[in-house]
């Protein structure tokens, strides 16, 4: 067993490159998530609007995002924008745009359901104290929804991190692609490198996503208590 596949990880700067790829994935996911949370909060409030037309438009947006595969959206923004609008975006920007478009819709729906789960008397008491609508949301409703939201937000974030493996198709070199490059460049010298490289990628994804899911589970428990 002198030709153990694990050796490829220590050749050159292979391991550092894998970490670099992971950093790229994480960057896209986290930036998109921050934008999604901000936009999703606003969208969620809009979604509870009493106006039918507004709710209807929000509903269409949400359905489009849920129906369209993320890959189609990525191609539309990366290649489509360049071809039809002459906007030549770098791959990572296109990825952030698509993931935010997706995340904001999902987040909006989460915020909407959290808002609707707040009992009506909370609103009424606020208004009864002479607060404006904005003040009721700012001081009464939002703080309560944030606590209810946290677990599902963590869930969305881990989903987003895992979905970043699609961005390779628009030329962004993330962790899975780096892995494939390493496996291929040592294809003739270390034929069983694949198992080891994918194993390490698995551990990397786990190491990143696990703390988030743990945190989500703990928060969930805390809120229940």
């Amino acid at each position, binding site marked *: 067993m002198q030709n153990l596949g694990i050796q490829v990880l220590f050749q050159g700067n292979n391991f550092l490159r894998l970490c670099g790829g992971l950093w790229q994935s994480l960057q896209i996911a986290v930036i998109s998530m921050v934008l999604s949370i901000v936009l999703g909060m606003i969208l969620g409030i809009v979604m509870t609007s009493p106006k039918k037309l507004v709710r209807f438009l929000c509903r269409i947006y949400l359905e489009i995002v849920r129906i369209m595969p993320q890959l189609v959206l990525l191609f539309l923004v990366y290649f489509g924008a*360049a071809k039809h609008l002459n906007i030549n975006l770098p791959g990572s920007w296109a990825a952030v745009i698509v993931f935010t478009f997706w995340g904001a819709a999902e987040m909006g729906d989460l915020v909407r359901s959290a808002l609707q789960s707040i009992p009506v008397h909370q609103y009424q008491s606020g208004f009864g104290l002479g607060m404006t609508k904005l003040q009721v949301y700012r001081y009464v409703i939002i703080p309560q929804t944030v606590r209810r939201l946290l677990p599902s937000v963590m869930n969305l974030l881990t989903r987003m991190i895992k979905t970043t493996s699609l961005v390779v198709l628009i030329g962004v070199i993330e962790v899975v692609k780096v892995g494939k490059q390493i496996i291929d*460049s040592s*294809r003739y010298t270390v034929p069983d490198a694949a198992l080891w490289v994918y194993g390490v990628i698995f551990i990397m994804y786990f190491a990143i996503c696990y703390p988030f899911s743990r945190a989500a589970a703990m928060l969930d428990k805390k809120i229940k208590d």
Partner: protein
Amino acid sequence: MKKKLLGALLGVTLAAGLIAGCSAPAKENSNGAQSPSAKARTLSEIKDSGTIKIGVFSDKNPFGYVDANGKIQGYDVYYGKRLAKDLLGSEDKVEFVYVEAASRVEYLKSAKVDVILANFTVTDERKDQVDFALPYMKVALGVVSPDDKLIKDAAELNGKTLIVVKGTTAETYFSQNHPEIKLLKFDEYQEAYDALADGRGDAFSTDNTEVLAWAIQNKGFTVGIESIGNTDTIAAAVQKGNTELLDWINEDIKTLGKEQFFHKNFEETLKPVYGDEIDPENLVVEGGQV
């Protein structure tokens, strides 16, 4: 509940309309290919910008791959660097964009790269989408067999068992042109190689680049037939209608032919993988002359 369903239904219709609306112009492009929406850079624009953007594979050893130090290497890349040197005066004035097989055409159509050098096999279908330059490489089928019962000619296979992988050009070629040869078919490459090693067949055939590389790694097996069947060529591609750049690449490839550039490229990039016994004439194309 009814309202929600109605909303969802409307959403679906609208989304479908959106998709249809977006794909319609793309279809126009492939038909009237003279007018892609994003215009490719002309030769002088590339010169002014100082770098040429070339799309290459980053996981196709030995044609385009990233080595352990993160540097891009390979047969296609070697040629790409030379293009940059001839056009802009330095091998470093090139930006390599890592592309995937499925999106190679899109990269050209959206003008994200100037040239694609990603082991692009010339086919009639692709000629409608992009313009191919003169070829710089060719591929055909190869046949690998054990050293002690080496098969050097298709006639020697008469009545023997040949292993092929389903859906490959090797399967089509042998079943159409050599019905006298018994074919043993497998779904996966690994199974096929295992069958050859076990002696379940007398020989195995697939792309010659693939069997050549395999034979180097497996002692006791040799590629007896290095080139058989229809030869496909591999060439650089530019956006449809970018004639100026295309003409320049073609002129350049003719000049490179005089100094036997692709033989040198073969020595540097392919020989370490395919070994000494391989005849470069089976892979290399000089000056665009197949």
